């Protein structure tokens, strides 16, 4: 495993809920990242974020790590969940809240 893959693996394994995004929760730098944060906040989730704009290695590496071409990307319990479209669909179906609740209880 390359260094960047190891770094990303450590991040997703070391945090129950982590969002790779552009910018920060307070100052998202992209509409999709902003929407992802809004969804997590609506779910009252505890989450970590990684600002890919501050780390070019992760910005490129996360795309191949997840086999997913775009940012944001959500990981829950070390598993790739999806981007903001999937987060919105799961949120509307109540599935994201359920997944986050189950994760919070498991940890």
């Amino acid at each position, binding site marked *: 495993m390359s260094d960047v893959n190891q770094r990303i693996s450590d991040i997703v394994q070391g945090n129950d809920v982590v969002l790779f995004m552009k910018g920060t929760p307070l100052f998202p730098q992209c509409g999709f990242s902003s929407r992802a944060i809004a969804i997590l906040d609506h779910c009252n989730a505890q989450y970590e974020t990684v600002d890919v704009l501050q780390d070019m290695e992760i910005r490129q590496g996360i795309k191949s790590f997840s086999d997913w071409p775009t940012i944001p990307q959500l990981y829950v319990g070390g598993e790739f969940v999806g981007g903001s479209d*999937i987060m919105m669909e799961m949120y509307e179906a109540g599935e994201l809240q359920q997944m986050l609740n189950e994760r919070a209880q498991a940890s």
Partner: protein
Amino acid sequence: MTGPLAQEMTELLTAAFAPTHLEVINDSAKHRGHSGDDGSGESHFTVAIESAAFAGKSRLERQRMVNAALGDIPGNRVHALAIRAFAPGQA
């Protein structure tokens, strides 16, 4: 007016999925001057697609299928691409 990228995406998706419904919506005008607006007028899109190819597939699988069919377009040649992919009767 359909731009060349919208046309290319329409052709790629039609060839890959024989969709029963397909909309390639150019949202770029709503993002003029934002980060990611490259001045091409084709930076932000929404794809809504219905195809029997998505039956029995998870959300992740459906999006991966659409992204794969679009090759290097998502995230590279198009800054922002929202995808809604469903099987008939699922939406």
